């Protein structure tokens, strides 16, 4: 066997590693550029409000439905699990804590990633391949300021609000199952929920939501701006945006949970 054949797997590994570092560098530079444009005028208010409408308001049904069913299923699971050691009464508190700390932000973030990162990447990618990004530049408008900054700011502000609404809907999902299927008294269920929830349970979930919103919009914009040519290029950018945003959300969730709750 030749030396080249022996070293080719190493070469492939090296290429992949270098490509990963290069991509990380490009993404870091992109985030740096976005942050630098955040604090320098001009700001495009109309683009910001349109992004809020698209990312926040129009994502509400999908986030709400996800939270409702997740809260309901969570209550059933906790009841079934709690029954093994006669702890059925913890259903309201654990459902609420589970929703606001973990499932609300993570599932909300993932649903927004699926809906918003894809649409941002496809929209900006199409703008790139049809020379609309170049047209923006020739019209003295910085594409980062006009396309990226409003979307990133809107997502960072709207996703925590979505998470907050999702938390309430999720807890209501648990309450519905608890009171109709598991025999809980309505007032007692709600009192237990309220009594056991602490401010930081909710606050940490909202901070996660802001981080996930930033990730979703940044990934959508980054992959859209770096889209390849043609329909295939835009399709690949869209797929990459959703995958990258989803993985980044799950990784960020772990890191934030470590930061917030590790002893």
């Amino acid at each position, binding site marked *: 066997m030749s030396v080249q054949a022996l070293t080719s797997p190493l070469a492939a590994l090296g290429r992949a590693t270098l490509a990963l570092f290069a991509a990380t560098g490009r993404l870091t530079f992109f985030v740096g550029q976005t942050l630098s444009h955040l604090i320098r005028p001009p700001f495009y208010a109309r683009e910001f409000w349109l992004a809020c409408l698209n990312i926040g308001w129009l994502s509400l049904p999908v986030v709400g439905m996800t939270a409702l069913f997740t809260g309901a299923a969570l209550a059933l699971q906790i009841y079934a699990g709690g029954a093994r050691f006669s702890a059925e009464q913890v259903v309201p508190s654990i459902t609420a804590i589970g929703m606001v700390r973990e499932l609300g932000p993570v599932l909300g973030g993932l649903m927004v990633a699926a809906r918003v990162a894809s649409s941002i990447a496809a929209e900006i990618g199409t703008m790139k391949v049809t*020379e*609309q990004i170049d047209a923006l530049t020739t019209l003295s408008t910085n594409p980062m300021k006009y396309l990226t900054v409003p979307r990133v700011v809107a997502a960072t502000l709207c996703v925590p609000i979505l998470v907050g609404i999702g938390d309430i809907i999720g807890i209501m999902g648990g309450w519905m199952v608890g009171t109709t299927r598991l025999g809980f008294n309505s007032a007692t269920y709600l009192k237990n929920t309220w009594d056991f929830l602490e401010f930081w349970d909710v606050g940490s979930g909202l901070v996660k939501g802001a981080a996930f919103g930033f990730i979703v919009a940044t990934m959508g914009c980054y992959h859209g701006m770096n889209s390849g040519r043609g329909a295939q290029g835009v399709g690949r950018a869209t797929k990459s945006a959703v995958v990258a945003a989803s993985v980044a959300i799950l990784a960020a969730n772990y890191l934030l949970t470590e930061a917030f709750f590790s002893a």
Partner: protein
Amino acid sequence: MITLEALTKSFGSKHVLRGVDLVVPTGQSTVIIGGSGTGKSVLLKCILGLIEPDGGTITLDGADVRVGDRDAFLARFGMLFQGGALFDSLSVWENVAFRLLRGSLKRPKPEAREIAIEKLRRVGLSPDVADLFPAELSGGMQKRVGLARAIAAEPEIIFFDEPTTGLDPIMAGVINELIREIVTEMGATAMTITHDMSSVRAIADRVAMLHAGKIRWEGPIAEMDATPDPYVQQFIHGRAEGPIETLR
């Protein structure tokens, strides 16, 4: 006057521009001709700073285009893109008035709309079109809207990237006439890239042929047919046989 000296640009191992020297005189219409993939669009984008050249210099009225206020530099230009490049999310009038609604040229919305409608009228479109969206327009209408946007802020220099591509011969003729009229009445410096010879004859004061990354021939339109350059002759007559290699 735009002056290019020894301009080079490569993409990986592909050397697109290999030392382009060209002068675009003020107030004249210069057309760059050349086959597909010869770097005509790259040349235009290098001047505008959309693509960073590898080497050489680009000056506008003697000043290096890469130094100085970029917004002020771009404010002197208008550009008609090959596919129109209209913003899908904005209505036609908002596309035309884009530059007038933001930045240093910002005006009140009603005034910007008024100017947009006047420019639409100038390119032969009725005010009814103003509130439509680009997706509701035909290709020819989109080109006209693109042209209206390019001239909305009354730039000194206008670039036209393949202005007749994808249009039927009659609509192509209409767009050529419009470009000629508008450039003449505005007294603008125009630079057009095309491989459509009817466009060249309708629009050009001067013609330059880009081949193999360099300006192969350059001169007034009146001298183009008489030039003995075999590359130019093959190109303008659309002959398959000649020094320019063609894939069959």
